């Protein structure tokens, strides 16, 4: 039990650190977000297996659906950024600074 907890926490923290510290491309930020979602998906599925609770078997699918929606919005924004700013580098997003 503590092993699975540590595994998915570690995956999540890796994704979060990638999102916060590796800020070059928007695409890599989106990939890190997907990685975070997948770690939570793993936690949900393992929860169903471990607790043997059938009524918790839909939440992993709901989670996947929502993360797919989120990924599609992210990719749409990636295209919009590429069309307005010329590239997907994060350091070009500086029009709104003080």
């Amino acid at each position: 039990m503590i092993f699975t907890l540590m595994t998915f926490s570690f995956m999540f923290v890796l994704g979060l650190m990638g999102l916060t510290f590796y800020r070059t491309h928007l695409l890599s930020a989106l990939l890190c977000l997907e990685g975070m979602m997948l770690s939570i998906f793993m936690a949900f599925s393992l929860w169903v297996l471990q607790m043997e609770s059938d009524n918790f078997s839909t939440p992993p699918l709901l989670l996947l659906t929502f993360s797919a929606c989120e990924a599609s919005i992210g990719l749409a924004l990636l295209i919009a950024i590429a069309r307005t700013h010329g590239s997907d580098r994060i350091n070009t997003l500086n029009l709104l600074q003080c």
Partner: protein
Amino acid sequence: MSPLTLLTMAFTLMLGTTITLMSTHWLLAWMGLEINTLAIIPLMIKQNHPRAVEATTKYFLIQATAATTLLFAATTNAWLTGAWEISQVMHPLPTIIITMALSLKMGLAPMHSWLPDVMQGLELKVGLVLATWQKLAPFSLLCQIPNSNFTILLGLTSIILGGWGGLNQTQLRKIMAYSSIAHLGWMLLVMQLLPSLSLMTLLVYIIMTFSLFNIFMINKTTNINSLSTSSMKVPVLTTLTPLILLSLGGLPPLTGFLPKWLILQEMIKQNFFMTATMAALSALLSLYFYLRLSYNMTFTIAPNTSTNTLSWRLNNKNIILPTATSMTMTLLMLPLLPLAAMPLF
């Protein structure tokens, strides 16, 4: 954007917040937050210029990260304690993570720096939605989880940094963003001591912000410079706007004074003397930039014909009635509020 799409998006936005408000399970709360975020993004990116696209991208990244972190903390809590319900006793570590995630979502002080940037890229209507309606869902979640002194710390930092950040700004939307940060700080101060008072502060804040954003929309301005020609465009609003700004700052005969007064009273009752003093003194920082706005709007230009180029005087008739109602409430509601606050005491 076609009216049908707009209607669908607006209803989905409301649906997301409603789901979060009604949920008892962390997964459902997260789903409401996600629906909310996904629905406001088309509204934000509607005018397709680079600044709007950039603001939307920043908003999306921040909200997605915060929501995922929230769900991660809820999952960890379930693995540690076995409970998925929001109201049940939580492990201390997930509590802290959830509080940080929710304050990232709302734009509270240590995680606030996205809010002025995002607000600057949006048009005023969507900015109003971002400053008011989008706070409701994270606020309700934050009310339900018990953590004693951490929210007071967050609130105090928000008041100080919200006042400090707005000092040197010339853009109205950035000033409104910092004002939103400072007001959220006031709500967080009493969130654990007296949640209903905190809710009342949120309602008063929403009314005041609504009237101020409507004034900006009627004037069609987004920076301080163009506010000064307001007396040529809408003279009556020009005389009333300083009062509204002072109500936001929290001066006595106006509505904005009451939440601050009750919050300070409650803090003193619960022996938080130092915190109350620091909060009250930091409110002066906010008051400074409100005063600067009203100075530039009313006191710098004589009310006669100007040689400047004016914008067209085509008034938007639609928002007159809500503006009048909310402005009256912003200015005169102080004697009525104790009736609303009666169940508190």
